């Protein structure tokens, strides 16, 4: 008997979904799914982008109503069929931390913790009581923050922990975490996982959605794998091996990463000297060679985004020089860097990467409309051709070139965001977290694309918080810590453990 089966045998499930189906325009997001979770269990929920994980979760929280099938919480069925349903689920002890942060930045920590449920006495909010309780709730998770500070001042990890602390309030029975670590670096993710373990120890069931296998191994007891809206299998994490799980997720074998070669002799295309940007960067220096993939590792908040932005001229550095092809760039601004043949993909795809209502074509071609127009007039034919080329080359899954990009999966959106610089002919690409929130299959494709672009002689800076992927793509990895580049690892001697150690030294 596996651990999972044992738990399920002697306890009634906290929540169960019985034969639920949910259809969206053109998609069967949930296909006759049946699912249960027991008290104290940490259940991982795995699947590619669009597999239906979030939809399954919305069934449990009452945010949506299944087209058919039943949802039982604590043994009784959810009955409301309107806006009361979410409240009903809440009262039955379901708490959820959504994929998107759901905090109000302009309000205090305490106000956010009790959002909408502020303690009141004769209708007046009791700030004292509230802040005291907030401090206590945060302490349970090892968070030591001032409850009257603004949420806006928190790091992403702290915000995520705050959301978990919120979910812990008022005797929950089931806590659902939808990709809580997707925007966190490894060390921050550790904090979240520690918090999850503590939660489970109190007999609360946890559903944990993640694309990161090693996290799942660390904390989950069992894993449910979804594909195309169906529940494929529930396995005991200890017993199953990663390749098997990946095979279940994809329905096929994962591809292998390409072998890497050393580029140390090629000419330098970009050199950064003593770059400073208070308060994050003190003095950063490095050189990037033609055809090289240079990884940048670091903890969240170590300033990798700022480094890329400073190079691109999106932010004005306080000190230092940026040299392109050996000559310094004066008064760098973003436009000038683009003209120098640089390209930049931001870390938050949804907020800064795509224009959701516009088609794949316009999202790709906006870097150089002139390339597809004659006499200033856009040519529909040339637009379709140019887009088709990029779409084919980067394996973007889309039916038409003018499909609104917002309807594509995250991984395909990310490929388009990279593709626009391929179209623009950029020779230096600065990619900030290009694999964030992207599933295993798309990740592998993005690695392959990056390697291929490097083969062609482009130079790439690859920033990632997922330490395990750096050895797969990078020729060289630099570690950003305390405002400067502290250590360098060269392929093939990039190993995860020493990288991790280098990131967190001194913390």
């Amino acid at each position, binding site marked *: 008997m596996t651990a999972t089966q044992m738990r399920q045998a002697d306890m009634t499930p906290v929540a169960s979904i019985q034969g639920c189906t949910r259809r969206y325009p053109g998609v069967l997001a949930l296909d006759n799914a049946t699912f249960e979770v027991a008290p104290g269990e940490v259940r991982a929920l795995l699947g590619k982008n669009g597999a239906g994980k979030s939809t399954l979760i919305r069934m449990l929280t009452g945010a949506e109503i299944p087209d058919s099938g039943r949802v039982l919480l604590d043994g009784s069925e959810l009955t409301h069929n309107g806006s009361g349903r979410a409240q009903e689920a809440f009262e039955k002890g379901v708490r959820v931390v959504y994929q998107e942060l759901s*905090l*109000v930045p*302009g309000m205090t920590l305490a106000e956010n913790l009790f*959002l*909408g*449920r502020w303690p009141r006495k004769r209708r007046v909010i009791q700030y004292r009581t509230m802040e005291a309780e907030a401090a206590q709730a945060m302490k349970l998770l090892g968070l030591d923050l001032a409850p009257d500070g*603004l949420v*806006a*001042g928190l790091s992403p990890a702290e915000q995520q922990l705050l959301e978990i602390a919120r979910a812990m309030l008022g005797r929950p029975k089931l806590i659902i975490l939808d990709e809580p670590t997707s925007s966190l670096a490894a060390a921050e993710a550790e904090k979240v996982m520690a918090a999850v373990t503590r939660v489970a120890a109190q007999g609360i069931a946890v559903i944990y959605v993640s694309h990161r296998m090693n996290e799942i191994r660390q904390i989950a007891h069992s894993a449910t794998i979804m594909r195309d809206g169906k529940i494929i299998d529930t396995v005991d994490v200890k017993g199953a091996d990663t390749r098997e799980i990946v095979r279940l997720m994809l329905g096929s074998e994962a591809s292998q990463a390409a072998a890497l070669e050393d580029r140390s002799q090629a000419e330098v295309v970009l050199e950064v000297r003593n770059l400073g940007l208070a308060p994050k960067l003190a003095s950063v220096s490095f050189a990037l060679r033609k055809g090289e993939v240079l990884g940048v590792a670091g903890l969240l908040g170590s300033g990798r985004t700022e480094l890329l932005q400073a190079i691109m001229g*999106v932010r004005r550095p306080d000190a230092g020089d940026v040299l392109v092809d050996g000559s310094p760039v004066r008064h760098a601004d973003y436009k000038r860097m683009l003209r120098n043949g640089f390209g930049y993909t931001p870390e938050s795809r949804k907020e800064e990467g795509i224009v959701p209502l516009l088609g794949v074509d316009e999202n790709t071609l906006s870097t150089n409309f002139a390339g597809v127009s004659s006499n200033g007039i856009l040519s529909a034919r040339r637009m379709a051709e140019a887009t088709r080329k990029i779409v084919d080359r980067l394996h973007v899954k889309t039916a038409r070139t003018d499909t609104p990009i917002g309807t594509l999966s995250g991984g395909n959106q990310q490929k388009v965001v990279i593709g626009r610089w391929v179209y623009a002919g950029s020779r230096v690409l600065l990619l900030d977290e290009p694999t964030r929130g992207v599933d295993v299959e798309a990740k592998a494709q993005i690695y392959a694309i990056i390697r291929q672009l490097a083969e062609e002689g482009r130079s790439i800076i690859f920033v990632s918080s997922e330490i395990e992927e750096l050895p797969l793509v990078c020729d060289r990895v630099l570690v950003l810590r305390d405002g400067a580049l502290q250590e360098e690892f060269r392929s093939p001697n990039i190993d995860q453990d020493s990288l991790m150690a280098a990131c967190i030294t001194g913390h």
Partner: protein
Amino acid sequence: MSLDHAAKPAASDKATRAGFTFSQHMNELSLFFAIVVLYVIFSATAPGFMSFNNQVNILRDAATIGIAAWAVTLIIIAGEIDVSVGPMVAFTSVILAFLLQMGMPTPVAFVLAIALGALLGAIPGVLRAYFDVPSFVGTLGMWSALRGTALFVTDALPVSIGRNDMLDALDRSIFGIPPAAIVMLVLFGVFAFISRKTAFGRSVFAIGGNAHAAFLSGISVARIRVALFAVGGAMAAISGILLVSRLGSGNATAANGLEFDVIAAVVVGGTALSGGRGSMLGTLLGVLVITLIGNGLVLLGINPFFQQVVRGLIIVIAVLANIQAIKRSLARNKG
């Protein structure tokens, strides 16, 4: 500069919020300073400006803008807008006058007028909350419909109320202070309290800051939106009552362009049109700035057309200064 801004919304947003408390006070301080400067200038140049009578006038004029502005501040903090204030005031003044003409007891007529204001105000609220009609469109429709109805039923003639002791009393000063000003200040206290100390007020901030998050944490977003616009209508009705007491009649043509002054006061007071940020104190100071300028320019005998020019400039400059002050305080914080 623009580049910096367009490029990193997340970062600069966050930073803005981090410097929030300070810059908020920056804004109120600088408005306070502006008021002091206006006082110095006008008392030196405008004859009669400092007279007790004129100060009372200023308060009374401030009441016209202020009472509506308190509610509009909350509406804008919630990320919405209300452009129907002027017609709503005129319309309720007309209705009140009709009710009184019909011989209804004055207090009952007051209550009915306020209830009607709330009901009418709730219409764009319901359209927004349940039918996703943007509040700009809904209140623009009300703007046209209410003014039209008021003119239509009165033929643009004032609706006289005859002798009415209660309304006369509302226009008679108490120890030199006009009741309108007292009503305004009391309501200011109420709104300042609501916005800071009640679940309703904090929910408004939460909705303006992140409506989705507010919904997910069980705040009745739709109901609060409706309530906000209903309160807006009720406040306009109170202004309408005071207008009747001041003019002795209901007037369909009155309060023309009041929505302009109200929104200007709120925006000058530092409330962001994008929602989630603002304060009642800021609006109070904004109301004073707008009123002082109007009063001073009349006293100075400035060409009335030119006064319009000055008002347009003031609004833009105040908002510009506010934004620059926030940026500067951020830069300082950061350095």
